């Protein structure tokens, strides 16, 4: 009996609702229908008062969550798609993100963001949003890549006293399976070495972890040993782990699925250059999606985001420098 990534998210919410009476879920179609991705299936039956359908009002959904959090609740908001969080942007960055600094009162909300591309989803159901929210003070941004992290990071996010943007990748929902969820949880804020190596480091997160591992597998056939670092949370960013890895390999590829201007990969490169310049044997490289809206057609989509092939190619370039 295996557990998928979406099962882990479902189970985390089920356990949270059972364990903590201050947890409640609010989002579009999450009640009797169970959510667009079935992440809340059956939860309304178990907790009719605490699993609530929301109107199509992303701004007000987040405003409501912040108000409820001030009153001692731990709301989990489901954005139906991360793309629609742009409507809630103001409440996220100006209401939730500033509240603790301004008033000294923390805002324990978790906003689940189904993000990332799947074939055929097009420009408005495929976006990555982590770089956007990571930029703003007061927000924590989680980007789980594994089934166990989907479970544990979600539970940790909800129990954290601060607002968390929880970026769950839609491509991993049903494709990614594990035999079981790990008993032990890694601490929130720590990165993980997915695969060790000595010739180059790929620093990445979310679904790109799996694409990086594929590229590393490919290059291992030629004797290259590529280290892959999964950030797990992009804010906080575990700089020590990144620098430690670059110290071992001397080469860095920062890889992400979001748009190329600025963002997480630029942040990774700038930290390594500033704090570990002497460790580098070659200029650090970045690989992101293209600087265009995300296309609908599967052939275009597959070429828009980094693929095992394009990652392999970029790594060859890095190894040749």
């Amino acid at each position, binding site marked *: 009996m295996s557990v998928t990534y979406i099962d882990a998210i479902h189970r985390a919410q089920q356990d949270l609702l059972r364990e903590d009476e201050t947890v409640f879920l609010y989002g579009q179609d999450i009640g009797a229908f169970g959510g667009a991705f079935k992440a809340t299936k059956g939860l309304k039956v178990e907790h009719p008062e605490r699993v609530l359908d929301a109107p199509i009002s992303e701004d007000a959904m987040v*405003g*409501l969550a912040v108000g*409820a*959090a001030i009153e001692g609740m731990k709301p989990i908001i489901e954005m139906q798609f991360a793309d629609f969080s742009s409507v809630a942007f103001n409440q996220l960055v100006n209401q939730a993100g500033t509240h603790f600094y301004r008033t000294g009162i923390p805002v324990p909300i978790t906003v689940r963001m189904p993000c990332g591309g799947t074939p055929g989803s097009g420009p408005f159901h495929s976006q990555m949003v982590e770089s956007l929210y990571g930029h703003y003070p007061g927000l924590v941004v989680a980007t789980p890549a594994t089934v166990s992290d989907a479970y544990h990071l979600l539970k940790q996010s909800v129990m954290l006293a601060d607002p968390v943007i929880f970026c769950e990748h839609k491509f991993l929902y049903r494709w990614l399976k594990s035999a079981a969820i790990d008993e032990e949880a890694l601490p929130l804020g720590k990165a993980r070495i997915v695969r060790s190596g000595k010739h180059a480091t790929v620093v990445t997160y979310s679904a790109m972890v799996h694409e990086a591992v594929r590229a590393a597998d490919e290059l291992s056939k030629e004797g290259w040993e590529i280290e892959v670092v999964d950030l797990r949370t992009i804010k906080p960013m575990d700089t020590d782990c990144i620098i430690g890895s670059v110290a071992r390999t001397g080469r860095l590829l920062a890889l992400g699925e979001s748009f190329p201007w600025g963002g997480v990969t630029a942040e990774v490169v700038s930290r390594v250059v500033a704090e570990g310049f002497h460790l580098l044997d070659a200029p650090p490289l970045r690989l992101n999606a293209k600087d265009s809206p995300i296309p609908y057609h599967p052939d275009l989509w597959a070429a828009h985001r980094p693929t095992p092939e394009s990652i392999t190619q970029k790594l060859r370039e890095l190894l040749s420098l």
Partner: protein
Amino acid sequence: MSEGTVTESVHTQLDRELLRQVYRSMILSRTLESKLSSLYKAGKVVGGVYLGLGQEAVSASLGTLLKRGHDIFSPLIRDQAGRIAFEEDLLDATRTHLGSVKGPMRGRDGNVHRGRPREGMPAMISHLGTGLSFVAGMLLARRLRGQLAGVVGGISIGDGATSTGSFHEGLNMAAVEKLPLVVVVTDNQFAYSTPRERQFACKSLVDRAIGYGVTGHEIDGTDLVGCVKGMAEAVGNARKGGGAQLVVARLLRLCGHGEHDDASYVPAELRESSLGRDCLEVGKEQLLSAGMVTTAELEQWQLEAAEKVQTAVAIAQKESGPDPYQADWRSTSTPGMQA
């Protein structure tokens, strides 16, 4: 709506006390704001000063009808009177305007952007309309905890805020959830310099109530007795389970958007119209003619207000501002989350 008179609307001792209480907060508010204006003009205020002149009757009616420690009051930019009525310490106002580190915002935010969220008074952000869903969330939390019975959440906004998406989303959401939210829109004819006909096309904003499925109330914001009466009805409805209420008060803002603004865009005929009446003058006449207050009492209230304001300003002026070298710059409550 015709002007309320004391004889037709107020009969009981409770009404008398309520009116006196509201008016006393109005006097204190006007006294404080007049001082804040002077301090601003003398260059003593950090940042801007935004006053509620002419809006005291509406604001204080709402603040008085809500009970600190039980209800929720979400003030906006022109609610000094409501804040006083809701028992906000005068020091919170002076400290926040004068940049004292001892204020509730510790110099991290200023002037009207202040509150005591854990005590039922959210600290507004500048993005208009966002408070509706915030208060709705506070009320929903009380419902989930089984503590909503008899509680009301009041929120004050202006006519300009009704044009935002946040206003629409928030009011609709509160209506869907049947939450006891009282939304008080003070239609003061201008949003900064933009006149109401460039802001919305409906005859009165109260016409929107039916569209949201909430109860609408329209009051003359210059009329103290009418304000208390209309507000008591709206708050009472919400308190006894009538769901969200929309109160629209019409008046003229008797100052600029902020003290930097001379409001030269307000036509003279509007100033001279009934909308341009000063609610403090109207209220005074109403209370005196009904024998609810004596001239001597009013003078006494005025003196007390001046003394309170003097003290609150003097204390805040002596206090130091935040020390940037001691600042922790922490924007999350959990350590280590900013790496």
